């Protein structure tokens, strides 16, 4: 756990995860109708619940992502991200188990169709192994931010605060 407790690693995790979720929220916020259609295509919720998810989910991603970047309420923001990722993984498992072909997961972009040569490539867009692996990695990162006790930076170490436990240093 020493690596994950490293303040620089913690900072990098926060910035990466925060930036990804802020970026992922923008296109969905810009086109609620396009995102609502994609949520409906996952076939995990009926038309009206899909609309409610589509209206609120990107804003939760944006708020949690911004908090992570700012380092404000970082544990709680990381846990919100972790909750979202668990829900996404569960839904993806359901989609894969039922053999439903979702060509654009709506994770980042809600653009209807991309050319075959387009970047990012198609296998990063659909619901498949790439999405599952990526979300598992991000889930691990989010849980590390939420639960790994950050080691003191050198500056903090030279000025001990009451919060620190010398026995663990």
């Amino acid at each position, binding site marked *: 756990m020493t690596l994950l407790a490293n303040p620089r690693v913690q900072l990098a995790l926060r910035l990466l995860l925060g930036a990804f979720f802020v970026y992922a929220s923008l296109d969905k*916020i*810009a*086109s*609620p*109708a396009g995102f*609502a*259609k*994609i949520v*409906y*295509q*996952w*076939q995990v919720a009926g*038309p*009206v619940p*899909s*609309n*409610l998810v*589509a*209206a*609120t*989910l*990107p*804003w*939760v*991603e*944006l*708020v*949690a992502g911004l*908090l992570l970047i700012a380092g404000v*309420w970082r*544990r*709680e*923001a990381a*846990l*919100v991200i972790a909750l979202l990722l668990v829900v996404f993984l569960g839904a993806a498992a359901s989609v894969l188990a039922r053999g439903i072909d979702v060509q654009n997961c709506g994770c980042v972009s809600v653009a209807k169709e991309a050319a075959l040569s387009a970047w990012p490539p198609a296998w990063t867009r659909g619901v498949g192994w790439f999405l599952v692996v990526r979300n598992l990695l991000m889930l691990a990162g989010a849980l590390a931010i*939420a639960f790994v006790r950050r080691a003191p930076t050198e500056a903090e170490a030279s000025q001990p605060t009451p*919060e620190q436990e010398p026995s663990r240093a």
Partner: protein
Amino acid sequence: MPVDWKRFILILAAGASLGFAWNAFSGRGIVLGQSVLMQAGDELVKAADAKGLLDKGALFLDARPRDFWRMSRIPGSLSLPEEGFDKAFPEVEERLRRASTIVVYCSGYGCEASHIVARKLREKGFAAAILDEGLPAWQDAQLPLDTEPRP
């Protein structure tokens, strides 16, 4: 420093509130209470009612890509795919003029093709109903499919 669950709930609540506010006031919002695929003028028909229409001689149109129609289809339906509508329309136009009732379907759930084809038909002066939830609803209701392959 333990996790403060009040903050956790607050983040979720703030995100949801902003989302509903954006949906209401941004001008880009959707009507939350109905399928996002619905637009003014779209008319849905439930699978059981559609079967009644089929028995009375309604014309069914398959809005999926033609290869799907070749594999299986609602009995008697013609292929009028959303992609390639303009090319396929002349093939079915004569039948449309003779039809008393027209029903369009596609592969259901998030499938928008039936809505788009029905709107294009409306522009051309044909009223067409959309099969609610498409083929999955038809199959769930144990209604017949024609699975004889077509060239």
